[in-house]
């Protein structure tokens, strides 16, 4: 596709529910990133993939957060047993290779009630 595509765009989850957020990176992009953005704040790094390898997951806030990219293209960010503090925009980004321009999707807006 022309840009990074994320779905769903909006998700309301009840506390304790599991959610899965999908990211389709720009075709051919090797690097894929997940960021979390709270209201009024800058994006905060969660995790990074190069192809199917998860090279850095140091930003994941707890073991309830899990990301995968099994075939080196589409990625899924899963949040188990959601809590209210998980409410945020989850941004996916991709780049052609390490050190190249990083392009962001429109984000998935998660509200936990």
């Amino acid at each position, binding site marked *: 596709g022309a840009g990074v595509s994320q779905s769903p765009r909006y998700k309301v989850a009840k506390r304790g529910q599991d959610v899965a957020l999908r990211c389709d990176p720009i075709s051919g992009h090797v690097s894929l*990133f997940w960021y979390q953005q709270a*209201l*009024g704040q800058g*994006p905060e*790094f969660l995790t990074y993939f190069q192809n199917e390898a998860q090279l850095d997951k140091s930003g994941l806030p707890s073991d309830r957060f899990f990301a995968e990219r099994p075939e080196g293209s589409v990625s899924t960010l899963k949040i188990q047993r959601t809590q209210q503090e998980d409410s945020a925009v989850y941004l996916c980004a991709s780049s052609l290779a*390490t*050190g190249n*321009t990083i392009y*962001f999707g*429109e984000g998935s807006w998660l509200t936990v009630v």
Partner: protein
Amino acid sequence: GENVGLHLPTLSVQEGDNSIINCAYSNSASDYFIWYKQESGKGPQFIIDIRSNMDKRQGQRVTVLLNKTVKHLSLQIAATQPGDSAVYFCAENMRGSTLTFGKGTMLLVSP
């Protein structure tokens, strides 16, 4: 962590003025810097980037200046338009690692 609230630094300008948005970055080893524009309800949009071997780079209506001595980055927007109203973030990157974002500045352009 500390709740800094929703009070972003704000720059208000008139349409047609030049705007300068500043950013102090944290890591002296960072070698790649990017400015992003984020409109309400949208993801960050790439504007312009600069590598550490340069001190100035120009795009269409935008110029980025890098001062490595004081770890300072600025974005200059010429002839600012109402469509430029958004939150602007600088981001730094070290040797191809992940981007670290600054706190953001809200630009408000009045017609």
